[in-house]
């Protein structure tokens, strides 16, 4: 899976590529408008991460070029502007999703996964982890072929975990993923969700994959 990161902040580029490489993606980087245009023209990517404010031009122009060339690369807009106009314009121009800075790398990874799955209509909708299989089309998770009775948020949480498997996910990343940006506070309620999900997985005969990592967050791992 190939990803192009178009972002002028080198430090942020490094963070994103480091995280994404651990998730078995290969990453290409463009830090200005000209490089971005050049790379998108001669290569095909599974997903392009596009910052709107770039030295040398507006990121939305790249989006326009891609659509003119009828390219089917998935596009995730990343903007610090958090401006509604940019979001609406970007989505209207054919971007697949929009993420405003600052974001969690785990959230970025989950969004990229979702975009790629959506692009591959004929491809596999099944995400597997040991005995656990998640069908993202019917939104059903099964353990050893018996379906789990999950609530909506438990399903989303499980998908988020599996998408970021073996990575530590902070509590606030989980809270914002499930409940949106307006949620604040101490995120103690996350514990209840984790507890319920863990119980359902174990009742279905799966191992306890969800590990608590000090007070920081959780990791979905078989180790």
């Amino acid at each position, binding site marked *: 899976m190939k990803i192009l990161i178009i972002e002028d902040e080198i430090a942020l580029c490094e963070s994103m590529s480091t995280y994404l490489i*651990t998730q078995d993606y290969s990453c290409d980087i463009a830090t200005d408008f000209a490089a971005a245009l050049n790379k998108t023209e001669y290569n095909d990517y599974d997903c392009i991460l596009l910052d709107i404010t770039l030295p040398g031009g507006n990121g939305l122009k790249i989006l326009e070029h891609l659509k003119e060339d009828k390219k089917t690369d998935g596009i995730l807009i990343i903007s610090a502007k958090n401006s509604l106009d940019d979001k609406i314009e970007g989505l209207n121009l054919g971007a697949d999703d929009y993420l405003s*800075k600052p974001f969690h790398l785990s959230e970025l990874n989950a969004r990229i996964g979702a975009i790629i799955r959506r692009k591959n209509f004929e491809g596999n909708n099944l995400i597997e982890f040991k005995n656990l299989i998640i069908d993202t089309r019917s939104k059903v998770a099964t353990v050893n072929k018996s379906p789990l009775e999950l609530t909506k948020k438990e399903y989303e949480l499980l998908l988020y975990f599996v998408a970021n498997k073996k990575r530590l996910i902070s509590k606030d990343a989980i809270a914002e993923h499930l409940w949106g*940006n307006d949620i*604040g506070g101490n995120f103690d309620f996350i514990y209840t969700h984790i507890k319920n999900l863990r119980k359902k997985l174990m009742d279905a005969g799966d191992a306890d994959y969800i590990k608590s990592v*000090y007070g920081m967050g959780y990791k979905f791992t078989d180790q």
Partner: protein
Amino acid sequence: MKLLAKYNRVNIPITIAILLFSSLGYYFILHYVLVHQLDKDLEIEKQEILHQVKESNALPETSDYKDQQIKFTVSKVGNFKSNFQTEDVYNIIEKEGESYRRLDFPLTVNGNNFVATVRKSQQETEDIVQLILLITFSVIAFLLVILFIANRVLLGKLWKPFNNTLDQLTQFNLSGKNRIELEPTDIDEFAELNKTVIIMTKKVSNDYESLKTFTENASHEIQTPLAIIKSKIELLSQSENLDEVQMNILQSLNEATTRLSRLNQSLLLLTKIENAQFVQTEHVNISSLILKYIEFFEELAATKNITITRNIEAEQFAEMNETLAETLVSNIIINAIKHNISGGHIEISLEGKLLTVSNTGSEPKRPTLEFFERFKKDAASGDSLGLGLSIVKKICENYGFSVFYKYIDEKHVVMVRFIPGLIN
């Protein structure tokens, strides 16, 4: 006080005083002139009598007409200075006092001394003075009325360019696109004012534009370093060989960064609402919006064993920006969950356009109105930013909706009415 009223408050008393003083002076001068005229007539009469006595050497006949009376009385004194005086005589027939002007002078006929008295009625003089005064007062009254009307009409006309400028300024809206267009005027002061108004509004608009750009840029500049810090913390926390102490440090860093970024986003949102940057209004179905958010947060409420009862009237709409409507509703519901007790209860109802959310919770330690102010929060909710209700209030203010928050019967009650006007 209106300028005209203030001006009149000085102008009218002074005008009246001057007119009164001048009519008083007028009266005295007129009176003096007429009496003087009367005295001249009496003097002529005296000369006639003296002439007659000289010619005939006999006392002339007395006469007693209404307007002129002549009589002679015997006098011991032969020679005295003739003198004028005014006297009031009661007229029995007309039953009123009449004033006369009389002249006494010595007269010697055949060696006998007499006092000759010539008396003329002053009535006509008085009448003339009265008539003249009446005319004067009528003129004063007429002048005042004319002055009053002229002030009204003329000043109204004179102030028209000013009032027009004022109207335009009142309707001037920075976020709106309407420019100020002022009527040309030939009055120098107003032309000067209009010139200044145009220069100022242009400057204000430009400043506002640059402030908007600055706000956007500031957010950009802050969000990017925050994004870098956040991503680096996340990467660092992935390291396999971190001990608990190091992890706790990372955890604190992460919490602070999250807080900072939420703070930045909330303040940015408040600034944007304040600057009325959410211009686009839609016909928002608040009924389905509220139901959507209840459903969205139901599982969150369940983690605290909070039950939600709802009574939402269908197909209710509000004219507002959809993003702001979502922020408003989600903030209120999140508040009701966050500041609730374990095993508590939330009641959400929408009757007409009135949304009422009441939830169980501990009594607030400060007056509920203060929670609408920025950064005011209960000591118990340490992790809260204290901006949720400020945002709710700001959104309501933006559309003229009224919002209400009170602690009644051990319940927090928040009400929002989705049409401009007050909650009664």
